[in-house]
């Protein structure tokens, strides 16, 4: 018989030929030394919207529940091990207890909301990490928004899920959902130790991949926003010139919404965003030395990545090795909005 390792490399290939529409979930153990390896652990069924009354809502609920149930099946024993620990031999007859912890969940933004059981659009609190109100996202008030409280939010999610399970007090359920922008479902991964227990990383574990969020592409290639400080100033200053950081956040929050609703951006739309953002880099990065000597050079560098995406962005069809350069995401991100602001800085550090 073939060595199991050799044959098992053929397995995903075999699965892809069956008559199912599925998407894979892969994991990686960061403690492994040497080459980065990703392993497929699940194929989640794609849930279609059927022709029925209230079809969109029902499909959404089905989609969320199927995802949570499959995730729980995959990590069922790993969750138990995350609390109890597993014995690892150290040599010399000694052992250590190893505790599993989820450090990073790479996905796109719609899936982030599904994983955490948050409402995905038109909500009072659109950010998964902080409690910024929708109206404040376009003002400097958004900068002082508090982080989401993991324990408190989970309390309400579990209460709402229990209400759905028991089928009573619909009014209370709706109040909980609308007040916290949550769905009445249980986030399966929250049962992992370290996410709902200290250090409470549940809302900080999600990271966006380059090709999941097309907006990052321009920053990825020019390596830092600070490179643009010597560009010609725009003819008209930003609306909130007194608070440049807030201004950047305003622009990016809008992009965030765009991504949330459309998910896939046309290359044309992305280019337009790049050109608009370049105009405020000069304010944001004042005093820094630019890498590219003029705006045209910067745009060229920024669009280089887009050349690989084609007219309409598509996900790659190979294992996700391309996230390896994103070590900046390993610590999770502080906030949807802040991640956009700080990521270029982080990348320049690396």
């Amino acid at each position, binding site marked *: *018989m*073939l060595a*199991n390792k050799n*044959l098992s490399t053929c397995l995903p*290939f*075999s699965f*892809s*030929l*069956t*008559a*199912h*529409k*599925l*998407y*894979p*979930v892969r994991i*990686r*153990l960061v*403690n*492994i*030394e*040497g080459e980065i390896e990703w392993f497929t*652990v699940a194929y*989640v069924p794609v849930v279609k919207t059927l022709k029925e009354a209230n079809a969109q809502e029902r499909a959404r609920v089905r989609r969320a*529940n*199927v995802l*949570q*149930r*499959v995730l*729980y*099946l995959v*990590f*069922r*024993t*790993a969750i138990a091990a995350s609390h*109890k*620990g*597993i014995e*690892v031999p150290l040599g010399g007859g000694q052992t250590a*207890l*190893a*505790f*599993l*912890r*989820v*450090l*990073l969940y*790479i996905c796109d933004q719609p*899936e982030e909301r599904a994983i955490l059981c948050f409402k995905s659009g038109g909500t009072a609190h659109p950010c998964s990490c902080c409690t910024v109100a929708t109206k404040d996202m376009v003002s400097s008030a958004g900068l002082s928004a508090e982080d989401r409280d993991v324990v408190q939010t989970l309390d309400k999610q*579990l209460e709402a899920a229990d209400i759905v399970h028991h089928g009573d007090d619909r009014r209370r359920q709706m109040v909980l959902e609308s007040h916290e922008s949550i769905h009445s479902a*249980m986030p399966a991964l929250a*049962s992992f130790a370290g996410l709902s227990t200290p250090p409470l990383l549940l809302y*900080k574990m999600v990271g966006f*991949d380059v090709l999941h969020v097309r907006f990052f592409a321009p920053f990825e290639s020019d390596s830092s926003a600070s490179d643009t400080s010597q560009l010609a100033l725009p003819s008209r200053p930003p609306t909130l010139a007194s608070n440049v950081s807030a201004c950047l956040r305003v622009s990016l929050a809008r992009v965030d919404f765009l991504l949330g609703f459309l998910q*896939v951006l046309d290359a044309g739309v992305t280019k337009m965003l790049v050109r608009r953002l370049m105009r405020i880099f000069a304010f944001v990065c004042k005093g820094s030395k630019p890498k590219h000597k003029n705006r045209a050079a910067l745009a060229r560098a920024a669009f280089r990545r887009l050349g690989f995406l084609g007219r309409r962005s598509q*996900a790659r069809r190979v294992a996700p090795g391309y996230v390896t350069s994103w*070590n900046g995401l*390993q*610590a999770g991100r502080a906030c949807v909005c802040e991640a956009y602001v700080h990521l270029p800085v982080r990348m320049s550090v*690396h």
Partner: protein
Amino acid sequence: METEIASLLEFSRVPADDQPPSHRGKRRKTSETGDVPLPTGFNYTNHSAHIRGFFEDKEDWQRSEAMVEKRKRAAPGRFDSYKLQEIERFALQTSRGGLSQRELDALYDLISVIEGTKEGMPHDEGQDVPVTHTFQSAEAFKKAVSDDLDDAVLQAGWRSCAMEEGGVKFKAFFRPALDLILALLRTRTVRLWSGDDKPAPPSDQRETPMQGDAFRLCEAEVDKLPGRNCVLGLHIFSDSCQLSWSGGMLSLSFVS
């Protein structure tokens, strides 16, 4: 681990005293039995137990089964020589759309293996045995490939689970992550701490995930527990926008 999960269900929750009111909507009634029995409510000791109890009550794991079923008189492992293994690998990796340039390379390699002329190839006892002697018909060949594939799926721990959600049935495929992690711990070189044999002191370095804030925070928490403890960090990648599409054009059956 199963015992731990069972004990969790037993000891981390008690039935709630304040059961929800008996009034229920029209949809919860059936014509034959009247009221549908109300699910039992529980009080849990913590969030994690609550979530795990909720999903354990769905009994998805108990309903899951091995992904494929071995056929009667299955005989995996008949590709027992280097030559036969190469043929099997070729049979599994050839697509229906014709051979690409890369596949032509593979075919050439295969031919050179069959002829015994490939550079550096091992020469075992099966080298001189004709393939048609080992598999006397095309059917026997197909079954042997299928058996090997089923065997590999089972060895990798893949399972399938049928689940119903909102009146629609779905089938998911999965393998327990812990089994995979334990296998990796056995077969790979693993670094358990961010430092040499203990958590590293704080630094500004951020070159590997083990130097990340998340890992260090978890390490600090785990270090508070008695004994020698370490953290195994997981990254999860969900490619929800990439569908493994086929449309069922090629019938590759796992079950004979």
